[in-house]
């Protein structure tokens, strides 16, 4: 048995992302696009049920949102586009075909700037096109053992954008960063809710291996069924391992579709190349082709908001924030809006940034809320932080108040007043406490006077403890020094 040479394999990865659009109505009828939580098959009409004789009508808002997305992804928008039918049989596809776009999509040739481990990469976007979602099937337990399949067509016809990426990603981590950044852009431009668990954002990956340095492409495997960033990365890591082991052992990778099993943490073969579907695409005769005017494109472009990379850069320069902090505060548009509102109330950006990204975000994470959803609004946080800046409250008290305001929804500044949390700034009262502290810790006094200036800290700490943190530490420090005199050099 010969020992195969070790090759340094490089992954070549491209992602296909499906994103449901946040339109009010479905892609081709006036049923609601927001189908979650409705009784099965209640959000339907002849068109999305695929009843004989029913016809589709294009949702203009979905077209607009797709163009908006394409522009945010630096795509070209051709003047002429059309819909096509993708034909296949499945019970969740009521018409027996999906209305999609084949050779003349709404957009093509874009790119996305992605930060990964301090590097910036710029993977290409092949195209962004528009199609309709399918319904959903429900089974008793696992599909293989269920005695029935129940069809729910509430989701059928929901506008779905397909964002096809070029095979420009070189590692599972890059793939994950790409998806994270793409999701961030979709959230910024308000076209998708980014919810991977509920499937409003879905991702398939194509991955092949080649010896590093080679320009050729290996046999690609399509991986499906990854419903989180983590499972995307794990599935690709698994494939990278599986394929390199196969190749190292002198084997060949089969062109196939594999599904990620979250339970088993591995990919499982679903369909081989030979079983690949023949979709028989042809132009949708029920829908006339669309002309997208240049004026419309420019109008949509002019309405694009500041996108994440630009906003991050602006936060760094305008607010003097460290790159990591700027990144945290621009993760979601709601985060950056919240931040700018706090700053708008006159709080120093650095303080606002620290408190939002650490204290408030910590509380929000524990409660599974976004900052915009929590009960402490930007004005309330700003009020609290101003007290802190003015030295009227200790940082410890501020944390306490923030937590309570987060729970109760009460105004933090009011809480400070009602709880008497304002700092003790009375020199007489503090002077007595300072003297008590000096009496209780003569060693510290001696140490300080002998030149060990850090001994002062334990005295300040003692006073703070005696006041449960309410003493103004700056004032305590001054009063101590007045009484201790200068340390001997």
């Amino acid at each position, binding site marked *: 048995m010969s020992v195969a040479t070790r090759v340094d394999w490089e992954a070549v990865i491209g992602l296909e992302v499906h994103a449901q659009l946040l339109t009010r109505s479905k892609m081709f009828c006036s049923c609601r696009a927001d189908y979650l939580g409705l009784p099965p098959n209640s959000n339907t009409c002849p068109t999305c049920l695929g*009843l004989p004789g029913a016809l589709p009508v294009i949702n203009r808002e979905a077209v607009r949102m797709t163009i908006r997305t394409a522009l945010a992804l630096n795509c070209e928008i051709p003047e002429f586009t059309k819909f096509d039918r993708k034909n296949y049989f499945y019970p969740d596809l009521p018409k*027996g075909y999906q209305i999609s776009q084949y050779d003349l999509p709404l957009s093509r040739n874009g790119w996305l700037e992605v930060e990964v481990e301090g590097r910036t990469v710029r993977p290409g976007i092949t195209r962004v096109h528009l199609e309709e979602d399918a319904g959903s099937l429900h089974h008793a337990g696992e599909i293989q053992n269920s005695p029935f399949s129940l069809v729910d067509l509430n989701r059928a016809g929901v506008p779905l954008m397909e964002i096809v990426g070029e095979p420009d990603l070189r590692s599972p981590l890059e793939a994950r960063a790409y998806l994270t950044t793409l999701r961030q852009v979709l959230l910024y431009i308000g076209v998708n809710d980014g919810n991977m668990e509920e499937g409003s954002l879905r991702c398939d990956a194509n991955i092949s291996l080649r010896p590093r340095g080679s320009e050729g492409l290996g046999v690609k495997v399509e991986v499906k069924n990854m419903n989180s960033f983590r499972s995307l990365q794990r599935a690709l890591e698994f494939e990278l391992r599986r394929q390199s082991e196969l190749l190292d052992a002198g084997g060949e990778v089969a062109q196939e579709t594999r599904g990620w099993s979250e339970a088993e943490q591995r990919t499982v073969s679903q369909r081989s190349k030979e079983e690949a579907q023949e979709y*028989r695409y042809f132009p949708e005769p*029920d829908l006339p082709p669309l002309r997208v005017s240049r004026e419309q494109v420019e109008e949509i472009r002019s309405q694009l908001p500041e996108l994440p990379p630009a906003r991050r850069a602006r936060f760094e320069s305008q607010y003097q924030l460290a790159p990591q902090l700027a990144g945290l505060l621009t993760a979601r548009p709601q985060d950056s809006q919240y931040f700018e509102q706090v700053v708008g109330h006159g709080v120093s950006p650095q303080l606002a940034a620290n408190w939002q990204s650490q204290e408030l975000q910590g509380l929000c994470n524990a409660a599974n809320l976004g900052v915009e959803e929590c009960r402490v609004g930007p004005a309330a946080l700003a009020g609290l932080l101003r007290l802190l800046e003015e030295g009227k409250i200790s940082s410890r008290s501020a944390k306490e108040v923030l937590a309570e305001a987060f729970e109760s929804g009460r105004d933090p500044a009011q809480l400070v007043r009602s709880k008497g949390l304002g700092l003790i700034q009375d020199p007489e009262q503090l002077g007595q406490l300072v003297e008590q502290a000096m009496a209780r810790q003569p060693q510290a006094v001696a140490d300080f006077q002998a030149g060990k200036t850090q001994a002062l800290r334990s005295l300040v700490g003692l006073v703070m403890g005696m006041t449960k943190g309410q003493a103004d530490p700056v004032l305590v420090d001054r009063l101590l020094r007045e009484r201790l005199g200068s340390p001997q050099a």
Partner: protein
Amino acid sequence: MTLLEEPIPELARRLRRRQVSAVELARESLAQVERIDPGLGAFLRTTPELALAAAEEADRRLAADPEGSSPLCGIPLAYKDVLCTEGVETTAASQILRGFVPPYSATAVARLNALGAVPIGKVNCDEFAMGSSNENSSYQTTRNPWELDRVPGGSSGGSAVAVASRLVCAALGSDTGGSIRLPASFTGVVGYKPTYGRVSRYGLIAFASSLDQVGPLTKTVEEAALVLAAIAGPDPHDSTTLQEPVGDLLAGLEQGVRGLRLGIPREYLEVGIEAPVERVFESSVELLRGLGAEISEISLPTTEYALAAYYVIAPAEVSSNLARMDGVRFGPGAERAQSLRQAYETARHRGFGPEVRRRIALGTYALSSGYYDAYYLRAQKVRTLVAQDFAQAFEKVDAVISPTAPTAAFRLGERTADPLAMYATDILTLPANLAGVSGISVPAGFAEGLPVGLQVLGPSLGEAMCLRVARALERELEIWRQAPPLERVAA
């Protein structure tokens, strides 16, 4: 003698003057169906309760506002069973839709209902409108009232027979390659295929979406204009409807053909038109010439490729349009299937007849990768050329005239064994569908006792022109006054 022999404008006058009620007309129509239709087989089902309720409502409207109501208010109509009718079973004459009761009505039907027209029932057709003889219905045979052992033509055979036999005043059909005009010619009635996009297809069970049009079958040209005016126009539910206003289709009806340039496509006379049909056509031409029309020969050079292109494009769309008939949401379905694939195969094999299966297979093949360019794409190019032919022709002439079909009605069973011969029946009608232009078949005479139509094709949105030429011929011939000899079949 039945009241239903009167043309719609005359009945409308009597309804407004309360000389007859809509309920009386509805009862007359239902009685005629009961008396005569068992020997003809035009109706798949009647809707007496709906009809009488609609008639009562029509009578109320006519009483309240006689002059303001539509001339179609209170008029008994029938609908081809490919048109969805809310609450009324709609099968497209197929087993796979047995029991399907649509929750909505086709736009054309809804518009007529809204005007107070009275729906008598649903009429037979070829399964999913695929056929030229009506013999592809999976439910029953429909006979030609002029000779009962002959076909009525298809696919809107039930509509044509219901009108020709005076069971109703008018019927809606659909025309994908001649399915309105051909049976109109075979049964001696007027049949109108509008410009593609003139009438909404919403609620029309699709055969070939890019070719299908809903249109009227009536005794007279004026009636066709009345019904067409009622159903035509943009529909927000059908993105392929044309936005241009319909205009007054009745205004120019009596203007005659003096000075009009009528073209006869040389190629249409080379398809093997039977001598008796040709003689009727020649006498129509002479008549129109005598009325002052300038007749010339023109050329539509791509005619010989049109049939082949049609039988690629139409089946391709069929293969996709009929995919929704999967037994999951409607139709008998497949119980106890062992797999999903088997469930589909069983439901579809049981549900579709042989001609439908043949076209699904043809279309599936034509769209398959590796064959798409050679078949579908090439057929679409031919289609473009056919449309260009017509566009060029209409620069030289105002309308194109030809026989509607190469033959008169043939015998039941005569062509069922030979699909290609059956397909050739549509050779003179289907180019208009490929080009999307408008066309009418108007009774032009009799060939050995069987009615024969003249086809008038107009440019896109040339509805008024087609109607005007057809009316000129009709005024001279008045063939509509001759009803088929129905005493033989009356029960």
